């Protein structure tokens, strides 16, 4: 058992055993495999790496993957707020069931939501049929990709916003209204500043999940190169052609961009909190 200043003394036993086991398992399942990816990408020649990750097909897939994910997270920003607000503030028949159902996209396997969404939004599908009357084609277009990503991001937004909305102080709202503030003013100056950090967190989580999503997208996307092909699918195609280096290069780029987005929004989050607290006073 390590008896250095690495850890503080305790009467409880088992640190050596559990720490050793955790470290071993973590290394075997997570860290060594991730290192394999980085090493594989690093073993490429620089020019080859650039050729793969900046190929027109790859650029087209980034545009779709990141664009649709941003759009889906933005849609969730609006509707996720409305749903969370409704669930926290209003009593209506079936509220508890709806509240439990919010987690459905977490629990439902992505292949199931994939084929179900593709059927619902196909041209002869339950909803796709009506949308096609207006000339809107959802399945096999970027709209379908966005809808799938909206569904799987929704729980992140709602679950992050619910506790934040329940923390909004009703007394402040009432006081503001008594003093003559309109609903919109109350929303903008009292509700929004309280829930904004949670909105940013929810947005980040929904976006991060959407960028890497595969199962629920490939059935509703047309999977045409340059048009409806997401980056994860392009990685799969590289792997099927036994081009491991190409796949690793694209995977590496996705990991770097995802971590950069998470980091940026964390920084923004901290800044926003200070800024909003400053203006509120």
């Amino acid at each position: 058992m390590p008896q250095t200043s690495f850890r503080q003394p305790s009467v409880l036993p088992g640190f050596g055993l559990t720490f050793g086991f955790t470290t071993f398992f973590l290394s075997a399942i997570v860290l060594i495999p991730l290192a394999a990816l980085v090493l594989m990408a690093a073993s490429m020649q620089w020019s080859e790496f650039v050729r793969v990750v900046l190929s027109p097909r790859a650029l087209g897939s980034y545009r779709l993957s990141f664009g649709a994910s941003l759009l889906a997270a933005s849609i969730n920003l609006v509707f996720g707020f409305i749903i969370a607000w409704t669930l926290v503030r209003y009593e209506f028949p079936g509220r508890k069931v709806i509240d439990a159902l919010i987690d459905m996209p977490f629990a439902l396997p992505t292949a199931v939501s994939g084929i179900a969404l593709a059927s619902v939004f196909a041209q002869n599908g339950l909803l796709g049929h009506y949308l096609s009357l207006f000339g809107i084609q959802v399945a096999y277009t970027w709209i379908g990709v966005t809808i799938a990503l909206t569904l799987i991001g929704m729980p992140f937004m709602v679950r992050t916003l619910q506790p934040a909305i329940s923390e909004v102080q009703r007394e402040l709202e009432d006081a503001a209204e008594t003093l003559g503030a309109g609903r919109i003013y109350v929303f903008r100056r009292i509700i929004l500043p309280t829930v904004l950090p949670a909105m940013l967190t929810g947005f980040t989580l929904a976006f991060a999940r959407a960028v890497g999503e595969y199962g629920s997208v490939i059935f509703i996307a047309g999977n045409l190169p340059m048009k409806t092909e997401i980056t994860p699918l392009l990685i799969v195609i590289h792997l099927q052609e036994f081009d491991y280096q190409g796949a690793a290069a694209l995977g590496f780029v996705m990991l770097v961009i995802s971590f950069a987005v998470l980091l940026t929004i964390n920084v923004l989050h901290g800044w926003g909190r200070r800024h909003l607290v400053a203006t509120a006073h």
Partner: protein
Amino acid sequence: MAASAIPGAIPDELAHRPGRDTWLHVLVRWSLIGVSLAFLAALLLAPLATVFVVAFGRGIGTYLKTFGDEDTRAAIGLTLTTAAVVVPLNTVFGLAAAWCIAKFEFKGKSFFITLIDLPLAVSPVISGMLFVLLFGAQGWFGEWLQDHDISIIFALPGIILATMFVTFPYVAREVIPLMQQLGNDEEEAAITMGAGAWMTFFRVTLPKVRWGLLYGIILCNARAMGEFGAVSVVSGHIRGLTNTMPLQIEILYNEFNFVGAFAVASLLTLLAVLTLIIKTLVERTGYKRR
């Protein structure tokens, strides 16, 4: 960090407040409820209904015939096998990780926790690819494995490894904060009074964290049985051998066997519903996710 459900009813003074029943308030309230319900109906309920409508669309006989198919049965068996290996291992890992993180203070702890959460930030496809890069034909150990006639990729070990990666943090991230919150006092008392380490763990700690543990296990199981992207990359899609239920759904769907695809999907949907019911019941015991 993602979720914190709010069980129970809304307090009366919040739901029905005097002075809040002007026509404008009522209008706003019901518009927002309407928008929420419409959004969820289109994105969530319509797809869920479609699963069962298509699965039973040609009668219950056709539905049941799907499960007479040998490849489909093999897929169900493989999914159950995978979950039976992955869930216990990740449970033991989660408990070990929680014990060393919650019971002791050591340097770099928060970094350690970040590393455990890492798989949540990785795309499923990339998760599967990691093991192809290690053990695939052109991977780091590909040649050695081939020389020794060991197959990991396109075989059961690869499926288990990929599933383990994606479900890795599920138990740990429920149990760690719970154990931290509940503190060490009872364990320290038990040890000081002469109880052994294992007795303390099984008689003191485990009962304290049982609901959080159950919560983590059911989420881990749901993801393990439903994982598609990661498993799809390592499986090789060999019928009757390396197809799990989600992969079998894909194959049936791409063959335009919609009844079959949705029949298998209906089983996984029921699993998801069951998971949510258990989850709601656990939350009812007062256990709250942080």
